[in-house]
């Protein structure tokens, strides 16, 4: 009988591992099943979007930034557009603000549904994913309705929206908002008191509030540990101060509390969506009245000389943005999301840097997973809700 070997084992988890949600690679050092150290290695999905952006005109950047965090396209373009509008000193009409808020909250629901399905599937609950995907499909249908594109609608533009809302928009949103609260209760019935789920999540991946902040995590990750910071409340943008909603927080800072925070966030998003939907008239303005950046309507382009010239200028040489820098963060599904935009006064961005909550969360996986079991690494990755497109850019 050979002697039992007990040396430390180094294991590569990923980049192709189903529970790493993309191409995250973790180099684990294991003592038996206990994790001794975690070294995250990222960059497998790096596409150089920030360098590409520097070759594009201001309005051509919107579709590019949307492809970074592919589960929350609207909040990428929203943060970029808000930063550019800050530099331009542009104020959009109220109706545009409400529509943007509604779309961003719907997309938070969409992103959380994907997170819930994949996270609990990693923990062994296969069924939930089939249900969350069913509801997500309906939300993606709304994107298709407004923009003809399901994942990357590019509907939020500098100065407003691409076009006015289509017919049937209100009915479609009402249908999903009516449906969701009951469905969220249904998911909770499957999970929140499920003994197996509780054993996999309670007291697993614990991080204290102070540690979470020291590792730069703001958003659902820090709120699971009891931090109250939410960009929508702390630094309101796009009229969030006029909406009524609560910021759910946890206490223990474990995987289960982060799960509860996100579940309650979904309910609050539904609340915000109803308020926004009530304020949006079926027809109205869809962009600021600013001929510098907003192209004139097509009927004027065909009939008026000035509108034709304006159209031609915007689509050929673009517009310029005053020199300076701006960073207007938004509360994305994964935490504070923002675009640091630097302009030199030209018609192309000098530098665009996306603040990526996934990169920050990836870095902290080690802090949460060390000392636990290797199976809990999967729970920690799932609960940090990383999107590798956002992480590697």
């Amino acid at each position, binding site marked *: 009988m*050979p002697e039992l070997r007990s040396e430390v084992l180094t294991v590569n988890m990923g980049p192709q591992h189903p529970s790493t949600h993309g191409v995250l690679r973790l180099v684990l050092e294991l003592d038996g099943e206990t994790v001794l150290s975690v070294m995250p290695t990222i960059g497998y999905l790096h596409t*150089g979007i920030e*360098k590409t952006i520097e070759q594009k005109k201001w309005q051509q950047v919107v579709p590019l930034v949307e492809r970074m965090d592919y589960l929350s396209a609207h909040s990428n373009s929203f943060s970029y557009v808000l930063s550019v509008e800050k530099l331009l000193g542009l104020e959009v009409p109220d109706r545009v603000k409400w529509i943007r808020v509604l779309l961003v909250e719907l997309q938070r629901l969409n992103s959380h549904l994907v997170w819930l399905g994949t996270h609990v599937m990693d923990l062994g609950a296969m069924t939930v994913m089939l249900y969350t995907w069913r509801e997500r499909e309906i939300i993606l249908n709304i994107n298709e309705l407004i923009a003809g594109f399901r994942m990357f609608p590019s509907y939020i533009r500098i100065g407003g929206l691409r076009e006015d809302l289509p017919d049937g928009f209100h009915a479609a949103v009402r249908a999903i908002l009516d449906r969701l609260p009951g469905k969220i209760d249904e998911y909770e019935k499957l999970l929140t008191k499920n003994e197996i789920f509780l054993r996999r999540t309670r007291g697993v991946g614990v991080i204290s509030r*102070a540690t979470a902040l020291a590792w*730069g995590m*703001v958003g659902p990750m820090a709120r699971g540990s009891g931090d109250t910071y939410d960009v929508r409340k*702390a630094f309101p943008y796009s009229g969030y101060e006029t909406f009524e909603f609560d910021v759910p927080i946890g206490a223990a800072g474990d995987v289960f509390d982060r799960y509860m925070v996100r579940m309650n966030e979904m309910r609050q998003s539904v609340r915000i969506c109803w308020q926004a939907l009530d304020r949006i008239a079926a027809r109205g303005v869809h962009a600021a009245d600013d001929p510098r950046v907003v192209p004139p309507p097509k009927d004027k382009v065909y009939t008026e000389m000035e509108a034709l010239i304006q159209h031609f200028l915007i689509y050929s040489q673009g517009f310029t943005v005053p020199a*300076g*820098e701006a960073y207007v963060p938004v509360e994305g599904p994964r935490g504070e999301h923002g675009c640091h935009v630097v302009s030199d006064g030209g018609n192309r961005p000098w530098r665009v*840097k996306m603040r990526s909550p996934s990169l920050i969360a990836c870095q902290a996986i080690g802090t949460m997973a060390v000392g636990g079991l290797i199976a809990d690494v999967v729970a920690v990755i799932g609960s940090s809700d990383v999107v590798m497109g956002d992480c590697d850019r």
Partner: protein
Amino acid sequence: MESRALVAALETLVPGARVEALPSVDQPTVLGAAADLVAVGAALRDGADLRFAALIDIVGVDMMPRVPRFDVNYVLVATSVPARVRVKVQVDGDEPHVPSVTGIWPSAGFLEREVWDLLGVVFDGHPDLRRLLTPDDWEGHPLRKDYPVQVKVPVKFHEPLQVTEDQFKANIEQDRRVRGDQS
């Protein structure tokens, strides 16, 4: 807190530090000197009415042909106040040096590696300054303004390992011997 109030608070907390308020459109911005960065960072984190506990982003910008050439922006948030500030450091040269703040905020680990990777700013005192997003054998720093773009280079492949039949047999035999020793 406004930029001026922040600067006043920092000047009392860190005597002799060169900090000045910069005009900005979005959030308070403070320009600091690279040499004072660690002291200023510690004061921002621990100062009684500052408490910027979270460093959420580091943004490097190449401002070529300006001198000094590089901007390094530290985006800080005090979540309980709530307040935010952007601390800007300007450095020059082909291999600019900035002291690392990993000792103050551990989140700087990846963020400083990213700035080094893409812009070539060296963070002195960083425990593990390797490339983060590009492959380890990448040459140059892509986000510099003098980095060539749209240049066609042939795709590189790694040569596959070639062994002769004799070497192959020898390998198998050696492997057998090693495993035989163990069991």
